[in-house]
């Protein structure tokens, strides 16, 4: 009973991590400009990586390696949105205009 619960919670965490990483990949490839891509990279990719690392931490159990995994999880949660913010800010300061609905339909920059 407990074994089955443990197994299926790992499976569910991994499946949601893969799903959010897939959403992030589709967003980075399909969205129209760099600000929208930074948005999807900072949100869905952080959540996907966090869920997959949580599955690893749950599977490792109580040992030294779990401490590393939890540290890695917190580090990814802090640094990934910060990096996306820095990239979007550098795009703004180098003068890249945001994409608006007035722009040509289907044209990406």
């Amino acid at each position, binding site marked *: 009973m407990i074994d089955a619960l443990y197994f299926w919670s790992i499976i569910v965490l991994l499946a949601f991590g893969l799903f959010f*990483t897939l959403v992030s*990949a589709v967003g*980075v490839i399909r969205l129209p400009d760099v600000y929208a891509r*930074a948005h999807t990279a900072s949100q869905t990719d952080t959540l996907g990586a966090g869920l997959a690392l949580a599955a690893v931490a749950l599977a490792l159990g109580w040992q030294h*390696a779990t401490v*590393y995994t939890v*540290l890695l999880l917190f580090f990814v949660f802090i640094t990934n949105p910060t*990096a996306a913010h820095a990239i979007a800010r550098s795009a703004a300061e180098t003068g890249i205009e945001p994409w608006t609905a007035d722009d040509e339909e289907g044209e990406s*920059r």
Partner: protein
Amino acid sequence: MTADLINDVFLAAAALFVVLAILMFYRAVAGPTTQDRLLAVNVLGTNTVVILALLAAGLDEPWFLDVALIYALLNFLMSIAISKFTVERGGVL
């Protein structure tokens, strides 16, 4: 028996993450601006960290997590440094 099954699940998930990371190369090659390429490489680095952690759990080699920690640190440093240099000098070189 359950432990073997969990290891196989982790290895399969690592393979799927590799596929999703390879998709990022499209944006890294075709991205019109430097920031697009930088963002794609940043997402690819996050995926690499997750792949290393999944391999550490799937292959029972916990020292992969040390490599993943250092890789996450260098990935963050790379993003911050290149985005700063593109503003202040108009490019990395």
